């Protein structure tokens, strides 16, 4: 038996050590780029120019953040992102619950039709160009609604909400119906208070999706005043279409410091954009995993 064999125990120890070490390396590799970005953004500008930063910050300077915070372009993009995310997420939660509640009823009229109606687009979509022309036809081109309206509902969220509501005891609805409550009242007074976890799942899925989206803006928003933060960053750091104005304060510093700070501002913008995601991360983890589990239970 392996338990009594000293060789087996030793090889087990070695295996354990290797497994722990490998997992540690994997965890390090996943967070390293973020750590590097953070270190670059808060180190002293002179160290950035000397390229001495590999892992941890050297020196400490928040100058690039101070300059970023004063940048009106960045704030406009930030505000746009907040607006698009809030509007899209709130309406998505409401629309999902409104349709999920009837769909979760065991005897809804034409429920087989509605099921097929929702499944078909999951397998077959019109594709990029038909949607693009549709948005033009609807007059949404170069209009903030081009970002908001399409994100107001999604089939995946509808199915997650329906699966969740279906799992609630039906007797709650039944007794309310017997008491003569309207469907509207049952939904808002009984179902909605019980559906907070699924609302969190849907809300976080949608919010992260909208916050991270830059492609919709590329397709429909040629006006850079309407750009969300991700598009602002894509133009600034990926396509180099635009540069960031460091403001007048920097003129007081040495040329080396100036170069360093201008480099650091790129890292700071990235940190500012990622910060909401990092702050929400504990919730994201909890509710996203929950979402995967509910989603994989669908019939």
């Amino acid at each position, binding site marked *: *038996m*392996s338990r009594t064999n000293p060789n*087996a125990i030793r090889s087990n120890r070695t*295996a*354990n050590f290797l497994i722990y070490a*490998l*997992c*540690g390396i*994997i*965890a390090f*590799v*996943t*967070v390293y*780029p*973020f750590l*590097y970005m953070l270190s670059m953004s808060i180190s002293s500008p002179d160290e950035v120019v000397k*390229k001495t930063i*590999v892992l941890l910050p050297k020196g400490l300077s928040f100058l690039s953040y101070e300059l970023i915070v004063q940048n009106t372009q960045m704030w406009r993009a930030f505000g746009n992102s907040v607006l698009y995310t809030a509007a899209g997420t709130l309406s998505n939660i409401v*629309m999902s619950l*409104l*349709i999920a*509640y*009837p769909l979760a009823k065991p005897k809804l*009229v*034409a429920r087989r039709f509605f099921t097929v*109606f*929702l499944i078909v*687009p999951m397998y077959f*979509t*019109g*594709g*990029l*160009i*038909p*949607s693009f*022309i*549709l948005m033009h*036809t609807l007059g949404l081109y170069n209009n903030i609604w081009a970002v908001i*309206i399409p994100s107001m*509902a999604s*089939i995946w969220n*509808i199915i997650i909400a329906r699966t969740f509501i279906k799992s609630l005891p039906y007797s709650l609805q039944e007794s309310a119906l017997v008491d003569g409550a309207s*469907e509207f009242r049952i939904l808002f007074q009984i179902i909605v208070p019980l559906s907070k976890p699924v609302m969190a799942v849907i809300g976080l899925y949608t919010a*992260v999706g909208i916050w*991270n989206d*830059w492609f919709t803006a*590329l*397709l429909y928003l040629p006006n850079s005043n309407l750009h969300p933060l991700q598009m602002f*960053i*894509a133009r600034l*750091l*990926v396509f180099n279409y635009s540069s960031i104005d460091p403001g007048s304060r920097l003129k007081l510093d040495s040329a080396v410091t100036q170069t360093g700070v201008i480099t650091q501002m790129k*890292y700071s913008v990235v940190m500012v*954009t*990622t910060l909401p995601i990092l702050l929400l*991360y504990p919730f*994201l*983890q909890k509710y*996203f995993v929950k979402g*995967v589990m509910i989603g994989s239970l669908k019939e």
Partner: protein
Amino acid sequence: MEQVVVQTKPKAGRIRSFLRELKRDRQLLVLMLPAVLHVLIFCYIPIYGITIAFRNYRIGDPYFALGAAARWIGVQNFLDFFKSIYFSRLVTNTLLLNVLTLVFTFWVPIAFALLLNEIASKRYKRVVQSFSYLPYFVSAVIIVSITLNILSPDGVINNAIQALGGRSTYFIGKAVYFRPIYILLNVWKTFGWNAIIYLAAIAGVQQDLYSAARVDGANRWQQMSYITLPSIMPTIILLLILNVGTLFASNTELILLIANPNNMDVSDVIGTYVYRMGVVEGRFPYATAVGFFAAVANFILLWTVNYVVRKKTDEGLW
């Protein structure tokens, strides 16, 4: 049961009972209306919009058109695409990129889940797993920005190469590095997230199988390869089928961020070509046809793989 009852009713009776149900559920139908309209407009109308591939459509023409007003031109756009010099390059690039990405992104989450499963300390396991899916929540723009930065001529990788006595390489500017960079980004972004589903499957394996195997003297490796892996095989097969059904699709959003004139020969895929032809150049019917071709090819692949797998293993999507 229910169906049988319905079928034996006369037609008029069926309509009448349908109308009665309609009236009974009128409040529910009102609640459903906004989302139904949304799906109808933003999912179904674009499906109808595929007809543009068969029309001589110009911007400003009506979206819905029937008969001669639609100016039907048949499959001309498809023929143009098949005969175009880009056709073979696009199909090769798309398939090669996706197959290579699948080869690397597919086994990593499985291996990672099996590895995590061997960790006894619950806390260490949780910490590693928490880190592993952080990149999944970070946007493509940010990830590409960081990558461009790290790989730039004065980035951290090139600094390390120079410190070791090597010569600095302009990774982003060379076509040969496009595929490795794209694949690495995908592995890094998705492995932790994709491992969740396997970890859930592993958690569902009956524990007495392991104790029985231990009594028989099976070591850890044997327990993993004879119990854990076979137990999660249905999940693996299901995900493999779903993945094969996307081999003609393109992650246009991500590729557009990494693509540049230097790597165009390998980075130009069907998705980016549709974007360029349609959105940039305004050749809407042609671009719609190219997109539709990819969708049909995906569907055929999905169906075929599902058919083959079901014949061989009895597992499948449908």
